[in-house]
């Protein structure tokens, strides 16, 4: 069997499904499929449950992360997406997962104990200074955000100023309905883009339509 096609660093395509190489062979995180190929094990990435996975399916060309990079992930929840990112950065990397809910943190802490590159922070992403001491000294290569708050863009900007490297990449998934329940989704996303425009160079905006309803992923680089 030939090796699977590599779409970007650490992300593979197997039979039309995207997948990452499993860091802990034999262990599932959220009930996904495990595929054995040439002695390596791959975990398939479900785009219906992960917004980053959905964005890759919809044509995101590059994640700009690889072996050994440091990431900050806001809205870690139960660690579905984060587990795949942890596959990509391997043991040398580090991912800080921030979430406010103790209920979902329960599962995430369990995941963190298994994977050596995951670091949990139970805190409010709206107040990045509240976990400043815990991250002190680290600067993220990329910032991921998936929180359904009304001030999503502001939270993203605050955290980027505090922890994202200059020229670092940002992936903001916008949930239109938690910003305004009335306005059309495209208009909402456009206003969110404008908010980022001062400090970020927007590279692409991806609609996550079949996988997520009225969500968009804004892919940008810090100026």
């Amino acid at each position, binding site marked *: 069997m030939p090796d699977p096609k590599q779409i970007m660093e650490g992300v593979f395509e197997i039979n039309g499904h995207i997948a990452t190489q499993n860091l802990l062979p034999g262990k599932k995180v959220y009930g996904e499929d495990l595929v054995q190929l040439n002695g390596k094990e791959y975990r398939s990435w479900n785009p219906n449950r992960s917004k980053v996975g959905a964005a890759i399916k919809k044509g995101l060309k590059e994640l700009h992360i690889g072996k050994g990079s440091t990431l900050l992930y806001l809205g870690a929840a139960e660690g579905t997406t984060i587990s795949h990112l942890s596959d990509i950065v391997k043991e040398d990397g580090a991912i800080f997962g921030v979430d406010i809910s103790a209920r979902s943190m329960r599962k995430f802490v369990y995941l963190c104990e298994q994977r050596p590159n995951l670091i949990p922070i139970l805190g409010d992403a709206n107040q990045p200074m509240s976990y400043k001491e815990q991250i002190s000294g680290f600067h993220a290569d990329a910032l991921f955000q998936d929180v359904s708050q009304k001030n999503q863009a502001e939270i993203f900007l605050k955290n980027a100023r505090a922890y994202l490297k200059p020229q670092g990449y940002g992936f903001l998934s916008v949930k239109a309905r938690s910003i305004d329940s009335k306005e059309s989704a495209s208009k909402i996303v456009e206003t969110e883009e404008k908010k980022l425009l001062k400090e970020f160079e927007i590279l692409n905006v991806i609609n996550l*339509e079949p996988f997520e309803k009225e969500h968009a992923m804004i892919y940008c680089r810090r100026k």
Partner: protein
Amino acid sequence: MNKIEELRKKLIQSAKHKIQEKYEGKETHIIKAVNLLEDLDMSSNLLAEQLREWYSTYFPELNEFVQDDSKYAELVHTLGERKSFHEKDVNKIIGDSDNAKNISAKSRNSMGSNIAEEDLAEIKTLALNCSNLKKEREYLAEYVEKNMSKELPNFTEIAGPIIGAKILAKAGSKKRLAFMPASTIQLIGAEKALFMHIKSGVKGPKYGYLFQHPLVKTASRDNKGKLARSIAGKLAIAAKKDYFGNKTSANEMKQELKERSEALEKAKPKEKVREQIPEQKFERKNYETPSWKRERPQRVERRGFENFSERDTRSRPQMGERKPWQKFGDKKDDFRRDPDHSTGRNSGDRMAERSSGGFRKRFDDRADFPRKRDAGVSAYGANKFGDKKKEFTPRSGNRDEPWKQNKFKPGYKPGSGKPHGKPGFGKFAKKKFDKKR
């Protein structure tokens, strides 16, 4: 690398510690219990329904005489067979001698079919489970009552334990409840109606869980909303008292609410005064004279017709764009296509949305051309994705200068495409148009 490993272990410990702290408050248990209470209600009702259905094949008359589910279940479980429905035993359970007499009489002469012992045993265990669920529900309600009056004494005094606990569950914690405005407390439990109201502008809800409050329940229909509002106001005060540790009791507030409800009931509801329409009297027409001999009514010109041109501009879209050779009402007219002038289905916003392909198409396009933006395409313009607005082109001929159209050229024959041979027509075409103007 070592540093990260150390940090990781430390942060995992601290996260665990924080999770522990989060669930230590008493209110978490109240919230879980109340959530369970709603589920228990639903499932016990379902079981009771199935039990009645099943047992009615054997003793259908019992279904009508015993309305209470828990008593029914107990009867089925303890007595079971029809012949053991003696008046004494039945009376012990339902506590109603007349009814017991009836039931025992009916059991002698039932229209139910016979049943095997094995099947009856199955029904009995179902009845046992059913009555146990009912008991569990009662214990749980007691538990909630006890703890609510301990945790939020003032709040519970006004709202009642179960409704109070439901509101607390929606709020999430004592702290969040204390910081809630009264208007939010009033509408908790009516989220669906509220969002329908915001979205589509139907009438907003007046009460959520507070609809079950005894004061609101007994109020007349017009006063329900008002009472719910004032109760919510008092609840907001009480929640703050409880959270910040003010020990004054809520009796005063309760008294005020009672007075308010009495005052509302006393006040006469506004009577809707209808305008009295005077009875129309019709004069009997004189049919004896034939119609052609009758005097004709004088013809009055209808309003708006006196000044024709004025009326025209008022009722129709502005026609400044219309060229004099264009027929009015022609579908190809420019101003009809112009989105600013039209209303309804093809109005401006919708036309613009359609021409740009809607939300989905726009973003799909952008996914394909990430580089296009780098190359200096303006970020926010109407035509950022390269789809230009279609310019309207008339189907044939030159509309701005119609005298240059083919059919006015000398030698034009309709159908042949060649100018026809009428001399002079082409020459004077322009002059003719000028005259018409």
